[in-house]
């Protein structure tokens, strides 16, 4: 009995230790070789166009096994339409990992530090894509479609695939006629006290608007006053989707910077919300994708990007999002005055703006109670 327990105990401890120790952190199964292989494919295919390119990619994808690993923060209901469509068009199976953009970033960074090739292609918000590209994790992707994207949104290392537009949205039962906001400055008016909701993490919107007003010739003091007035009597909320939900329910009268696709979705399901005509200039932030340098299926990744930027864009449009390239090749932001979120500035100064926005929000007065 005693001897048996000794063996059991030793066996358990041994198992635990084996699980704990792995290879050394820098070892990996030929991931350096992967990087080189990926880069070779990208370099080889980038100059090709049209049918030649497509055929080459299909051929290479077949050799790679006709499978793709996609990390994306695309909404579930849209992804559930997009990826099956790609499979139908090409016969390639897509394994989709979906999460919010910050989690995707953490996962990609964690995996790359362990030289684990988990993803072939990553598609998420501009800020996170910029970080990933900055760290040199994405491969060089060039194509005819990429050139059609709005010139203000051409980025190194990743390509926009859809746009997030921030614009005020209002509840049509509580906000009518003269109360409907026409400009951003309108929101600072005292008539909106108790009606407006601001989102706690929108420091990129804050930064972009601030710069816009500076360019308009306003002084910093004037801009600060305007924002303070906007915050006065406003209700801070967490999460854009929750905000739209509460806007539909009438808890808020106006959401200062709502995602236009969320507003559109609520409106389509019958909720009394609207954001048209847009308050201009709209603030726009791209979401985009990058093929990974360490991808196990680099050609498949390129094939997906090509498809996503052409046929895929129509699906994006049909499902209520704003594509990067309209199906007829035109610019979806054409006809609108657009303020792009400066991603480089966000990376460099994001922390400082985040703190300033924080302070601004916490200085806001309590929303007037009905009591």
């Amino acid at each position, binding site marked *: 009995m005693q001897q048996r327990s000794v063996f059991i105990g030793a066996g358990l401890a041994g198992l635990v230790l084996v699980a704990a120790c792995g290879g050394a952190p820098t070892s990996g199964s030929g991931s350096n070789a992967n990087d080189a292989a990926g880069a070779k494919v990208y370099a080889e295919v980038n100059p090709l166009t049209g049918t030649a390119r497509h055929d080459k990619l299909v051929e290479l994808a077949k050799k790679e096994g006709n499978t793709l690993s996609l990390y994306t923060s695309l909404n579930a209901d849209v992804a559930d339409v997009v990826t099956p469509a790609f499979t139908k068009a090409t016969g390639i199976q897509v394994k989709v990992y979906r999460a919010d953009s910050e989690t995707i970033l953490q996962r990609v960074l964690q995996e790359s530090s*362990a030289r684990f090739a988990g993803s072939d292609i990553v598609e998420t918000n501009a800020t996170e894509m910029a970080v990933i590209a900055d760290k040199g994790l994405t491969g060089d992707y060039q194509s005819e479609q990429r050139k059609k994207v709005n010139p203000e949104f051409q980025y190194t290392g990743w390509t926009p695939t859809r746009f997030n537009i921030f614009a005020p949205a209002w509840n049509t039962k509580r906000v009518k006629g003269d109360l409907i906001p026409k400009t951003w400055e309108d929101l600072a008016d005292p008539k909106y006290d108790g009606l407006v909701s601001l989102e706690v993490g929108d420091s990129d919107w804050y930064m972009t608007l601030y710069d816009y007003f500076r360019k308009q010739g306003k002084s910093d003091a004037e801009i600060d006053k305007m924002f303070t007035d906007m915050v006065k009597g406003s209700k801070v909320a967490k999460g854009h989707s929750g905000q739209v939900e509460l806007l539909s329910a009438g808890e808020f009268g106006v959401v200062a910077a709502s995602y236009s696709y969320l507003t559109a979705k609520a409106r389509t399901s019958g909720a009394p919300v609207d954001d048209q005509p847009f308050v201009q200039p709209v603030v726009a932030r791209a979401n985009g994708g990058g093929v990974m340098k360490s991808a196990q299926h680099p050609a498949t990744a390129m094939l997906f990007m090509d498809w996503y930027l052409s046929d895929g864009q129509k699906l994006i449009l049909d499902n209520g999002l704003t594509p990067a390239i309209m199906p007829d090749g035109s610019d979806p932001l054409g006809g609108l005055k657009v303020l792009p979120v400066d991603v480089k500035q966000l990376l460099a100064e994001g922390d400082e703006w985040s703190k300033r926005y924080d302070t601004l929000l*916490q200085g806001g007065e309590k929303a007037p109670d009905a009591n």
Partner: protein
Amino acid sequence: MVSTAPPPVDPGRTTRPRPGISTEDLRAPSRLATLWTALARPRTLVGVATAIVIGYLALVPLFYLLWGAFSDETGFSVDGFARAYGDPRIGSLIGNSALFAIGSAGLAMVVGTGLAYFNVRTDVPFKGLFFAASIIPLIIPGILYTIAWIFLASPQIGLINAVLEPVFGPGTFNVFSIWGMIWVEGLHMSPIVFLFMVAAFRSTDPSLEESALMSGASRVQTFVRVTLPLVRPALVAAGLIMIVRALESFEVPALLGLQNGTYVFTSRIYQVIKSYPTDFPVAGALACGLLLVAALGIFISNRVGRNGSGTISGKGFRPRPMDLGRWKPVVGVGILLYFALTVVAPLVVLLYTSLLPYYQRPSGEAFRSMSLENYTKVFDQPLVLNALKNSLVLGVAAATIVMAITAVAAWVVVRSGLPGRQLLDHVAFAPLAIPGLVLGLGIAFVYLRSPLPIYGTLLILLIGYCTRYLPYGMRYAVSGIHTISTELEESAEVSGASWWSVFRRVLIPLLAPALLAGWVYIFVVSFRELSSSILLYSPGHEVLSILIFELYANARFTELSALGVVMVLVLVVLVTFAYRVGARVGLRSD
């Protein structure tokens, strides 16, 4: 004629030299051999093995957190602490967090203990329904529960306020206040206390209360001066979990506190983690603050537990419910009213919302637009059945593994006398104070570098869940052991039972109510675990909480309500079933 044959010798006992063996072979065993024999006893080995497993599970993310907290690009540094605690707003952060934590813990304790007492120790009517209703707030995902309360008690759109308006004027209740936060969080967490106290009250000897009653004490006096002290270990353990959980709580402060400018610890930790570049030193520094509170709590909890005497002792007893007599209808109605307000109301709001295309106040138009469309949409999702299956498997596995490990670990901490056993308790509690994302990152870090096929499978989620829920299991098991006096095990040992026999046939059955409570809690709550799951899962291994998150993030709130209703139905049935099964083990009651 007397037989001269030598008496039969038991081969195991060499009291006389047998032929062929010299006396020298019978010299006293060496010191090393004694030590070896002492160490190789099953109790020690099991204790050490459990300690290794727990240590491994809990220390991996803890080291990852501490490594992040105490280092930056240049190496060791405490800058994170300076930045975290030097912030001028830290005072109000701590103040708000403390008020919120103590308030909601207090409410949960009162509600949970009261309900448990009535359910177990009195003959209140509708016990089965009562039990299910007490658990329901635990099952509803935090986001849904909080939003349901917004729809009930918001000064702007709240239904309760609308009903009361003719009498009390507009906005009687304001859920967007610290009191609103305390109310919602306290109610949401009361099932945890309920489960603890049910286990505790089931194990109390009623003869002490009976003697008090017979000596002339009123029922209330008996409750306060006899019953409560008897269950003190469970009370303290429950209180500790409540406070740390409230300090860690995220949804309630986020949805209800921001409007009011009430920022708490977790808002700050979340903010820090979600921004880029992630300031891990600050996040780690803040989490260390939580760890300190937790360590202090464990210390106090164990002191109190040790001083209390076990109520399950060698004297036999049968727990018998107290007759409420003429108070029965009053108590019955009081409890029904309580449930109507705190459980039924939010559920009805969810049910109502799940039938609408979008949330709107009750009106003719609203009722005309009702349909079951959201339910079909939920089940139409390609992943939902797989996610439900995965969640069930993980829930059952995690709950079972954790309770098995902590049963042994609790024995180690309370009974074994092994050196360093208190440390085991502290280590097992650590994961509670580690933010979910950091926990996930720590686990991912280890298994990305391990040759075993764990990363990218369901196993890594299982490891994450076991780590996450270890502290809860430990608290349930430890407080359970504290209520059992040592006499029973000692008499078993004296009668010749081996350690394993004593453990399996005496201790476990007596511990069963506590273990069952822990099992149920972990099973139910694992369905809602998101922050580690979303980092660690891989395609094909989705769990239900990921779906909940996706529905919420895409503002598909009505479908989310439908999913919530389905979850409640399924889990209530499963939990009631588990309790029916569990009630067969251990102490029987009339």
